[in-house]
Structure formats: structure tokens, C-alpha cells
């Protein structure tokens, strides 16, 4: 039996050796003149959120391509940027492996991860290796609360966004009786809880809190339960793949309530899936509307031409890469140790917002915009400063 054991070990060793050979010289610097700077990116590229993950990757890739086309000098040397994109499957364990791999690949910085559940465990590994990490879309408050100096995000957190949404629902829309559904993911639950706090603080009543999951397709049971409580507004904390069908089933059940949701459902996908029922739905997205930002319209035009419609976080990924490069330029080095301080103190005009970080690495003074579906597209309604929300 032990010979089996030894055999299996030697087999495993052989596999590893093979791999060692497979790792070739492609990762060496290509030309002697150009300094190669690697930037890592990670998002779920397989599984139910793959369409959003790919969107993230595309956003980062476009920024890298732009920078290479523009020709960037850092500390007097011409730089060639390389994107290393890895699939973390939205799984915390895979995320730590990916993080370690990116650290091994000697990346200068990481754009990611997409989800809070993957960003948090990976954070420690980046911090141990001194690699700055900018998440384009992790919204959990805990992400920047762990005290790691290397963690940043270019996205408002759940508290900031939930606050704006709750206030808007109760004050601007005058909702009195609000029902809440969340998908029991870190994102949906976090956002819903913050929304509830803010709505209650502004005088609204939460008449029902129901739940679904991030793979569900049928919401009729929970929506019927909600209907019995006669709300005037339904808030959903979760992603577009559920939000769209939910809005549709809401209409089909003849439940007459306004539908409101967060950034995860503010996508073209939502409108596609909800069909006519999408009309009038509200959602928020951190930042000022793209076409109101300098360079925003140009960005979206070029992105759509290259990769198709923007799903969600591609502009944030684009900004994250650019902020990182700007910090490198400012510090005159792509060495994480040297440019980390520059990154922490940066002020950069991106396509989503003017990006500045507070002491924790959260976005400082970001705005949050509320949108509504009008004639089949998301139209900005109202932009609110997130400052007050961040303070609480």
C-alpha cells in the first residue's frame, strides 16, 4: 500500500515538475529599453456573475491598452504595461490562491477583486507582499475596516450608498411603507441593511423584509408575501440577474409599488430581463453620470465600440488602473513600496469621479447618482454627495 502512496506522491511531483518547465520565459521583460510593469486583475470569469467579471476585465484592459498607446514614462523610463487577469470564481479560497499567484508574478498592483467576499481574504496576502489593491466594486464596509494600508476602492461602500438610497426613497419619493428583499449575499444583505437604517431614520416604515438567493429565478412567493403588506415601495438588494425578473414578476402579480435597487442592478441587463416592467424602476450608482464627466462620454463610446455595452463596473476598473498609473508617475516609480504613499494621497480626475482616498482607503467625497428607467434606458435623476453618509 505504501508503494501506492509513494507512487502517487511521485506522480504529483512529476506533475509539478512538468509545470515548472511549462513556465517559460514569456514573462521576462520583452525589450531591454522598455520597463515592463505588470498589473493584476481578478474577478469571477466563470459562474453566474461571469458577465460582470468579464466586464471588469475589459475595463482594466482598455485602460492598459490606452496607457500603452499613449506611451507612459515613469522615472524617465518608457513603460510597457501588462495585464494579468485571473479568475477567482467569486470563491474566497480561489481568491487567496489568485492573490498569491499575482504576488508571485510580481505585479505592481492589483485591480480587484470584484466581490467583497473575495477582496477581504485576498487583502491580507496583498498587504503581506506590499502590493496596492484597488477594488473597483467591493462595497462591504469591512473591506477597508481591516486596517491594511494597501487596500483601496473607487466605489462607494454599502453604508454610503444605502444611506443615499434610503434617504431618497423616504424623502424624495415620499415612501411610507417600504418592503425590502435581499439576496443573502454579502453585497445584497449589506446594502439592504444600510438602506433600512437610512429609510427608518427618515421616517419610513419597513413593513416586510423577505429574502431570496443569488441563483433564484422565481420570486412570486416572496412577492406575494410582500403584497399582503401593501407597501408603496419595494427595495431589492442584489444583482441584475434577479432584479430584472423580480421587477417583471412584481408587475405580473399586479403589485402596485415602486421598484428600487442598488448599483448591482443598474445595468442594461436589468432592463433587458425586466422588459416593459423595467420602466420607472430606480437604482443608484456611485459617481457622477458618465456623460457629465470630462472624458466620460468618450470613454463609453470607445468601450462600447470595442467590447459592447458597459455592464456595470468597467468604468471603475478603467479608473482604478489609471489612478494606479498616475500614482506611479507621481512617485516616479512602479515599485509598490515607493508609489503606495503617492496613491494614498492622490487626486485624480477619472471618468466616474474625482478620485481621492481617505485614511482607510475609501473614496473621499464621492457623489452618488440615482437613476430611473425612462423609455428603456437608465436616466440620471439626482446626484447626492456621499459625504454626509460616509460620516455616520
Amino acid at each position, binding site marked *: 500500500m505504501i508503494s501506492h502512496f509513494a*507512487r502517487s506522491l511521485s*506522480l*504529483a511531483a512529476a506533475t509539478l515538475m512538468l509545470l515548472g518547465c511549462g513556465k517559460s520565459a514569456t514573462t521576462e521583460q520583452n525589450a531591454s529599453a522598455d520597463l515592463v510593469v505588470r498589473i493584476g486583475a481578478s474577478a469571477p470569469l466563470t459562474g453566474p456573475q461571469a458577465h460582470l467579471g468579464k466586464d471588469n476585465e475589459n475595463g482594466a484592459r482598455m485602460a492598459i491598452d490606452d496607457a500603452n498607446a499613449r506611451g507612459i514614462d515613469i522615472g524617465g523610463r518608457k513603460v510597457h504595461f501588462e495585464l494579468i487577469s485571473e479568475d477567482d470564481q467569486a470563491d*474566497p479560497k480561489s481568491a487567496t490562491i489568485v492573490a498569491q499567484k499575482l504576488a508571485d508574478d510580481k505585479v505592481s498592483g492589483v485591480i480587484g477583486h470584484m466581490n467583497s467576499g473575495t477582496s477581504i481574504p485576498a487583502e491580507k496576502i496583498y498587504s503581506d507582499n506590499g502590493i496596492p489593491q484597488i477594488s473597483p466594486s467591493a462595497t*462591504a464596509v469591512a473591506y477597508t475596516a481591516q486596517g491594511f494600508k494597501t487596500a483601496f476602492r473607487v466605489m462607494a461602500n454599502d453604508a454610503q450608498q444605502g444611506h443615499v438610497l434610503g434617504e431618497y426613497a423616504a424623502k424624495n419619493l415620499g415612501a411610507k411603507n417600504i418592503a425590502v428583499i435581499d439576496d443573502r*449575499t454579502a453585497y445584497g444583505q449589506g446594502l439592504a441593511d444600510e438602506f433600512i437604517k437610512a429609510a427608518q431614520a427618515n421616517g419610513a416604515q419597513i413593513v416586510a423584509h423577505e429574502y431570496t438567493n443569488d441563483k433564484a429565478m422565481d420570486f412570486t412567493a416572496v412577492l406575494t408575501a410582500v403584497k399582503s403588506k401593501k407597501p408603496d415601495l419595494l427595495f431589492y438588494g442584489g444583482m441584475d440577474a434577479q432584479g430584472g425578473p423580480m421587477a417583471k414578476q412584481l408587475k405580473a402579480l399586479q403589485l402596485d409599488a415602486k421598484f428600487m435597487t442598488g448599483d448591482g442592478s443598474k445595468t442594461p441587463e436589468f432592463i433587458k430581463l425586466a422588459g416593459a416592467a423595467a420602466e420607472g424602476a430606480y437604482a443608484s450608482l456611485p459617481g457622477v453620470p458618465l456623460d457629465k464627466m470630462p472624458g466620460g462620454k468618450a470613454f463609453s463610446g470607445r468601450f462600447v465600440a470595442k467590447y459592447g455595452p458597459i455592464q456595470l463596473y468597467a468604468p471603475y476598473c478603467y479608473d482604478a488602473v489609471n489612478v494606479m498609473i498616475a500614482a506611479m508617475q507621481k512617485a516616479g516609480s512602479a515599485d509598490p513600496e515607493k508609489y503606495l504613499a503617492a496613491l494614498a494621497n492622490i487626486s485624480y480626475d477619472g471618468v466616474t469621479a474625482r478620485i481621492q482616498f481617505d485614511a482607510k482607503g475609501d473614496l473621499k467625497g464621492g457623489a452618488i447618482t440615482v437613476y430611473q428607467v425612462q423609455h428603456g434606458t437608465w436616466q440620471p435623476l439626482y446626484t447626492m454627495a456621499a459625504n454626509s453618509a460616509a460620516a455616520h
Partner: protein
Amino acid sequence: MSRRSLCGSLRFGLLATLLRGFFVMQFSDKRNRLKFWLVLAALLLLPFITDALLGRSWVRIVDFAMLYIMLALGLNIVVGYAGLLDLGYIAFFAVGAYCYALTGSPHLALAFPMMFPAGVHLPFWIVLPMAALVAGGFGVLLGAPTLRLRGDYLAIVTLGFGEIIRIFLNNLDAPVNLTNGPQGISRIDPVSVAGVSLNSTQHIFGIVFPAVHLYFYLFLAFTALVVFVSRRLERSRIGRAWMAIREDEVAASAMGIDTRNLKLLAFAMGAMSGGASGALFAGFQGFVSPESFSLMESVMVLCMVVLGGMGNIAGVIFGAILLALLPEVLRHIVVPAQQALFGRTLVDPESLRMLLFGTALIVMMLYRPAGLLPSRVRRRELGADEPAAETSVYDATH
């Protein structure tokens, strides 16, 4: 010699004794003893070799593979020895992980400042057996209502049990915040052995041991322990009774075997191994959340057991290593292979990776239906070419 390096050498001494205890029965003559030392040396050097050749991410992957080995060996007790098909095994891993996470993180202090003003923070050597025991308790809890069920009915109930545990972990943040719900528990203390945190780089005799290496040795020790226990169980009265139940429950009970208690014991023993590795996982990763314990993970561990060869320890270990490494190996070779073949990347590496993984599962099973390294009993059965009794998961169907 500093205190630190003393601790280090002590730890190695302990490890060597443990490993030796396991191998000694196999390596009683001289030639075999040499083999034992060679295998041990190879294992001890493994993280360094891996690190040097492939990079540190591979050491981490190997660490996870060790956790999977422990899980697979635990499941092997239930499925391989006792023949009880369990599709919710990851629940015990989850229970162990949360035991460690709750006692080793600031979460309880934040959620119940009155009861635990400073958190619990028990030493690892107390939490680990506790996690194993609690998981074992859950094993009995699962076993009790399912004693009468067979085959696929058992499979669906265990699957449901696994989901129930996950759903509770995901939702027990209200009305009292016990598990922090989907947000998971972060800032979990690293495992520390004899006052040395494994989450730091250690210098022993001038050799640098990064955190992933230290965890490797810890996991290696525990894997050796699980292997040792499995071996002893296999050859004990209990192990033989399990196999009797697996082959024919009615006959076994007619021979005076207490099938009820022995089945419960199998569930408990399997669960304990899962719980212990869960605790190690929580300490290693520093973060747990319910999404790590999905049904797919249970299925993966079952695949490891079946693919490697149910009931055979070496086979199960091999299966676990193979399936834990395969997706990562594919992650690394899919792009370079395409580049080499076609000069560019034709297909997205991610889709191709999982596609190849699924194909590998099918192909391996088609060519080695009894597992890659089948157990001796199994091989004998196949050799006899006779359809066996119909109740066990081992059987040929008709």
C-alpha cells in the same frame, strides 16, 4: 540558540515522531526504513522545492490540497468504509471553520460586548479538538434520522443537511448576530503553535520559513494523524464491521453487528476529521463566509474519494491531490499551450479550464471505474466478475 529555533526544532521532533508512528508498521525492515526517511525528507523539502520551481502560490495550492486530503480521508470513512453516500459532507468542514472563527476573532466581542468583552481567543490546541467534537456531534445529528435510508435517499438527505447548515450560517446574523451572516467573519487569529504565530515568517537555523511553509508542516502533521487513524480504523474490529455493513447490511446485522451505533460512529468519525480541517482552514485563511461551503464543495470532495479509489487510503490521497491541483494546473497551462499551438489565445482560458476539468473527470472514470488506485477488496470483486449484492454503493447495478 534562540528560543524560537528551539521551538522550531521541537516541532520538527514532534512531527517526525508522528510521521514515524504512521510509517513504522510499514517500514519495519531496513530497506523500508530507508524508504521512509526518503519520503519524509521529500515531504519536508516539498514546500521549498515547490517555492523555488513554481512560486509561492503553488505552496498555497499544496496547502489547500492537504486540507482536501484531510477532508477526503474523513469522507472516505463514511463513504468508503461504511458505504454511506454523503453529499453534505462540507457542512462539517463549515462547522469546524466557524468554531475556530467564532472563538478566534473579534466577532463575538463586537456582537456580544456584554458577554465577551475581549472575544474568546482560546489557544489553538483547545479549539481544534473542540471543533472536531462539535462537528462530530453534528455528524451524529445527521446520522440519527437517516439510519433507515439507503443509497440515493441517503444522498439527498445528506445534501439537504449540508444546505441547511449553510443556510443557517448565512442567516444567523439576526435576531442575534451569531455568525455575521453573508458578510462572513474576518480578522481570525492565525494558528499559533507554542507561542509562534504561523502567520509570520520565521528564521530557523538561518533558513527562512514563510507563513505558507509553516502551515504546510502543520497540515502535514495533521494529515499524517488522519492517515494514521484511518489505517488503524480500517484494520480494527470497527473497520471490519463497517465493511460488513457496506457489503450487506442485513447480513451484518444478522451476524450481531450493531449497525445503528456503527453507522453513527462512522458519521461522527468522518465529521470529526472534517471539523478539524475546517478549523485549520479558518486559521489559515483568516476569513470564513458561508459561500465557501457550497454544495459544489461537497461534490468535489466526493469526487476525490471516488476518483482516487474508495476505501483505499493511498487512492483517496491521490484523488484529493489530483483534483485539488488539476484546476490550478490548467489555469497555468491553458494559455501557454494555446500560445504554443496556435500562436494566440483562441478560447478564454477560464472556460477551457473548467471544460478540461469536466472532461478529465469523465475520461478518468471511463478508464478506471473503480478509481485510479482501487482498494484491494474492490479489485478482488472486479476480478471475480460477479455482480455483488445490490445494496451497497460499491455495487454493480444489475
